[in-house]
């Protein structure tokens, strides 16, 4: 059973090509096809959810590079998130007047992201990793808001800077492995980094540099507020919803399995930065006057929780951190979409540009409030489960980190609720554009209902979700 995995990333790519002619209809059709395929593969997985499909076409080139795909529940989970958010993005942008390239870029992005999550050959992993940048560069640069050019270039260069070091690390890893074993391989499963000797720290930190930029971890985060703020709504959704997850995924898939001891020794530094990110992101978010910027900074804080959990290498931390990846995709995705809806209507995003929207647009207020609560970790909604488990994991390893993390949870309300109040509750100020804001239409409501119900589901009954991810992460538990 080889074809499905290749089909998984080829389908959206084919969609990208078709979109050039059929535009939104092509995008819709292929997003649905893609989502269906993902669902099919997920069902086809063995019940344990463990690695079930390996696709190897043999070495395609020298030096052990081979086309190798595989999917365990972690991969499929994130691919499902990709497919789902892609569909959401297509639905949410349905009425935008954009050229065919817009849809093609989104489909190409989905393809590259899928590739990242599927690849088990580090070469292809890197290729897909970098390939994600190109469509996103155009999405930000062509359909973003006023300062989009600067943001697009900054986004590309900054994240590329991280991944360049990751590439060097991969090269050093493969070379060192070859020197020791005499075998050229980029196969993640075959590589053994435990005997690397002095090169090991170099490789490890190079990998971390690449992942940390993507996550993003303080102090490598400053591309994110610009990119998120300037990207179009759907672009922000994909950026926050899936692209940030690549960093944590990289940790889970590459850095932690390859460097079990080093990653643990680095916990004070990495975990410290992650914990600091949660507080720092929250404080920065408090200072923002732009709604999108605020959400962007909140992402930094949220990914800090994921990291704390993942780095703890405990069962609950890993699973919770991973679930938090999905949660953040749903919650922040919803928030970005809604800011996008606001922006489409009023062409403003400032906190002080709006007011009284709870009266003018009650549906919007409801969904925004709901997502905000999910985002600040209200129990019963999705954010809590992930944060709680991640913090529980971190606490058992390095209590001070969890302490900082809990402080971050506390601070979350201090930026999210004032922002909510300023936009939805406070009376419309003199320069306000609230009058232009109409309430959500049926299509938009449907999109947000879907997201909200998922948030509620994960919040109330996270167990199936956790059980889905847990087997894939079991091997990482220390």
């Amino acid at each position: 059973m080889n074809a499905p995995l290749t089909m998984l990333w080829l389908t959206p790519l084919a969609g990208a090509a078709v979109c050039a002619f059929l535009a939104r209809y092509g995008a819709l059709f292929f997003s649905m096809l893609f989502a269906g395929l993902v669902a099919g593969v997920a069902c086809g997985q063995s019940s344990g959810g463990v690695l079930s499909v390996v696709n190897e076409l043999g070495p395609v080139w020298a030096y052990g590079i081979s086309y190798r795909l595989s999917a365990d529940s972690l991969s499929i989970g994130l691919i499902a998130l990709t497919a789902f958010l892609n569909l959401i993005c297509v639905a949410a942008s349905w009425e935008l007047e954009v050229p065919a390239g817009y849809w093609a870029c989104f489909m190409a992005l989905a393809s590259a992201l899928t590739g990242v999550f599927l690849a088990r050959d580090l070469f292809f992993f890197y290729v897909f990793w970098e390939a994600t940048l190109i469509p996103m560069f155009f999405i930000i640069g062509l359909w973003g808001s006023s300062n989009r050019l600067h943001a697009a270039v900054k986004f590309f260069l900054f994240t590329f800077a991280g991944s360049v070091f990751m590439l060097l690390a991969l090269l050093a890893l493969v070379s060192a492995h070859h020197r020791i074993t005499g075998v050229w391989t980029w196969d993640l499963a075959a590589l053994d980094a435990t005997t690397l000797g002095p090169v090991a720290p170099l490789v490890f930190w190079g990998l971390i540099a690449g992942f940390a930029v993507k996550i993003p971890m303080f102090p490598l985060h400053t591309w994110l507020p610009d990119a998120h703020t300037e990207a179009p709504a759907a672009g922000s959704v994909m950026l926050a919803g899936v692209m940030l997850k690549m960093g944590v995924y990289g940790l889970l898939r590459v850095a932690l399995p390859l460097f079990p001891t080093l990653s643990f020794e680095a916990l004070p530094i990495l975990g410290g930065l992650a914990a600091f990110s949660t507080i720092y992101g929250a404080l920065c978010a408090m200072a923002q006057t732009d709604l999108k910027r605020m959400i962007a900074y909140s992402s930094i804080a949220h990914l800090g929780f994921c990291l704390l959990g993942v780095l703890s290498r405990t069962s609950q931390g890993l699973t919770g951190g991973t679930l938090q990846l999905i949660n953040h995709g749903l919650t922040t995705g919803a928030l970005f979409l809604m800011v996008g809806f606001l922006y489409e209507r009023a062409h403003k995003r400032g906190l002080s540009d709006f007011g009284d929207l709870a009266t003018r647009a009650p549906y919007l207020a409801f969904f925004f409030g709901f997502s905000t609560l999910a985002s600040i970790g209200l129990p019963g909604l999705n954010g809590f489960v992930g944060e709680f488990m991640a913090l529980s994991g971190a606490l058992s390893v390095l209590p001070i980190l969890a302490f900082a993390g809990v402080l971050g949870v506390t601070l979350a309300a201090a930026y999210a609720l004032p922002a909510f109040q300023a936009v939805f509750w406070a009376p419309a100020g003199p320069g306000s554009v609230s009058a232009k804001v109409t309430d959500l239409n049926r299509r938009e409501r449907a999109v947000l209902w879907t997201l909200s119900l998922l948030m509620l589901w994960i919040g109330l009954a996270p167990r199936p979700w956790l059980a889905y991810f847990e087997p894939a992460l079991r091997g990482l538990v220390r």
Partner: protein
Amino acid sequence: MTAAQVPWAAWLLFAAPVAAILIGFFGFRRFKPEWTHLPILASCAVVTASAFWLAAHVYTGHSFDLNLFRFAEAGDWAVDFGLRVDGPGVAVLAMVSFVGSLIHLYAAGYMKGDPGFSRFFLVFHLFFLAMIGLLTANNFVQLYLFWELVGVASYLLVGYWFHKETARKAALKAFLTNRVGDFGLLLAVLLIVLQFKITHFHLLYLKAASGATFELLPVIGFLLVWAACAKSAQFPLYFWLPDAMEGPTPTSALMHAATMVTAGVFLLVRSWPLISLVEGLPHLIAWIGAVTALGAAVVAGTKKDLKRILAYSTVSHLGLMMLALGLGQIATALFHLIVHGFFKAALFLCAGNIAHALHQPTANVDDVGGLQKSMRLTYLSFLLAALSLAGVFPLGGFFSKDAILDAAWHHGGALAVMGMLVAAGSAFYIFRMLFLAFYGARPEQKQAPHAHEAEPILGVPVLFLALGAAAAGLLKEPVERFVLMGWRGMPSGLAGLDLVLNLPGEPVLPHLNMTVAVLGTAMAALGAFAAWRLTMSDPGFDWRWRGGAAEAVFESDFGWKTLVDAFVRGVSRLAGFTGRVLDKGGVDGAVEGSAGFVRAAGAAIARSAQGRINDYLWWMLAGTAILLLRVLR
């Protein structure tokens, strides 16, 4: 015991509110918003009936505690959710559902015609549901879930009139302060998971009492107290509660009497077996309670806004409950909680009736006076509840307060004195309020021309509550029994906690101590007399003393609010610095600056050879020379 054997009443506790909210949200809210209260009132009736049935069930020895489903699981880490219907829970539940339902009924009249009627009722009922969940949780994570839900619902209700800036601010203040408290609870729960690997109350206590040492226990206990201080409005985190009366009056009533502030006390009751294991912690609780009770009682005597007086009164009474808890009198605390629920709800709704009569969201002592004549039913209800609050025999408040004073008296020392002073202070502020609002009509007060008695839907629930407040003394024995049952073993195989835990001051209520009863009543009389002296015999006094330094001291709650404001300003300044200076200028500045640096480097190189052949050749020679030097070393 399996889920199938759980009494249907327990399921109804949740099923009815959830169904009501769903029907209200998807049905009535869209098509007939002014009917939204109908399913919700029905649900209230069902919940109350179920609660009483369960109370009776438990009273007859059928408490139960079982896990229903596994909430989350990863490896050997797991959290189960379940139901615990035991004595303390069901005692409070009965009060909450009864008082809460009456407030719901009242709200149906009070909020009629409000444009957000439907939204109000849905959130209001969510608030109610959250409290039910909190009372029936059987583990800490579940409790935390409903604890937070209570907070969110209160946020939405306090900020219900969101066009008012004060309402928005108060809502935010309430939520953020509670969030500070939740910091403690979340951390405590996390630490519990870490230390005990279990969050189920009963099993956890059994484990804690097993004799092994748990070094994190003091931290956990302290954090639980911290959390309770925020939710139950105790010093140092009490300050959100007086502002929280910005919400519609039914909200305040529900929040103060039944659903919100009692959660903190209930948390401590629930976790008492843990807290009692920590050396010195009960003592700390007692002191927190005493200080808060006294301070709030004094401040309550200086306020002008009717609801604000009541809010400080709540803080003060919660302090008394904490005092009782700290002295090991769990049943006493719970008993006072229940009695307080009745009289405080009644008082708030009376204040609501007054405001309603004036067609304003809230009423001030400046606005009213002499309502005794125009609002007889309200006056009667208020009088009953006020006397109960002041601890006048034989009303409910007498018994509950007396038990606390008795415990303090037994403990002796400063706590005993403070307890007595609180008794005097309570009587003072409630009688002052009574005199100012219902008697006289002083020259300083605006005349309330059209104050008229409220319609029955507003009057009757209040009367019932006041009657309840008057008669609540009868509940003393049952509450004691309920609490005692809380520690017992469960038919589902849980060993009794009373066997393994040497719970200090086992919840046997002190018998009526004549000395304390007389002294307490005397103190109350003293307070009432002082109130009469300063309002009735010197009508202008309340207006005369204001404006000076004294008022500033009281307004700032002896300076504490100023400190808190300074702290909040400090945090927001820190955020501003981090976001605008450090991040934009520092971290991002370095990133953005690197481009300029590279450009400058390029310009410097370019300047060194401005297109001249000779310069090119010099560069070549320099490069070659360096190469040769390196080669030849």
